[in-house]
């Protein structure tokens, strides 16, 4: 079974530039999550999708971050414009269904450096 795919793995940009990350979840997984993990901290949930609908985006800085999952499969997270404090690893995860006890499967992450 293929795991959660993310690209790119690394990205270096200047502040005020834009960047986009892509995630392809495990086939058949209805729930998709984007997290931001700053060095030394636990992952912070940015947005959670159930199919192509948003379950929670309360911690997504909507003035600069956006995410979509148009066909209920893969997803894109965008930052525009980037700030220095956006330097972090962005993790994508998926789970089979919108239910308790469902394990999340994580991708390898995208390491973003904003200069």
């Amino acid at each position, binding site marked *: 079974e293929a795991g959660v795919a993310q690209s790119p793995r690394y990205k270096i940009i200047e502040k005020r530039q834009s960047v986009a990350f892509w995630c392809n979840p495990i086939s058949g997984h209805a729930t998709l999550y984007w997290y931001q993990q700053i060095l030394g901290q*636990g*992952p912070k*949930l940015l947005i959670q999708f159930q199919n192509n609908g948003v379950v*929670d985006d309360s911690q997504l800085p909507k003035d600069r971050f956006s995410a979509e999952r148009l066909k209920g499969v893969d997803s894109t997270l965008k930052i525009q414009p980037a700030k220095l404090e956006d330097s972090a690893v962005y*993790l994508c*995860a998926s789970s089979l269904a919108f239910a*308790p006890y*469902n394990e*999340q499967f*994580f991708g390898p992450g995208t390491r973003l450096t904003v200069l």
Partner: protein
Amino acid sequence: AQSVTQLDSHVSVSEGTPVLLRCNYSSSYSPSLFWYVQHPNKGLQLLLKYTSAATLVKGINGFEAEFKKSETSFHLTKPSAHMSDAAEYFCVALQSGGSYIPTFGRGTSLIVHP
């Protein structure tokens, strides 16, 4: 709102000695609870999860955790540490009541000395 508190940012043990990583949760509802491990330069992997079937949960690589509702705790233990256990460990609560929004603790770095 729920929160997850991992009481120690670092735990240092000698190989062959017991491991205890502490986690407390705060939730309006009874949450689902998980422990994930993150080895250096590797993705997060599930260790174990509490499903309400039993309060003592066994996971991979000899780890187990006990759910104690009265103490709102879900501490992770292992009888004997191995060098390969050195990693970052995260306690996660999945809020119930229909939203199933996950909250991570800040993580505990387990250091294993030979």
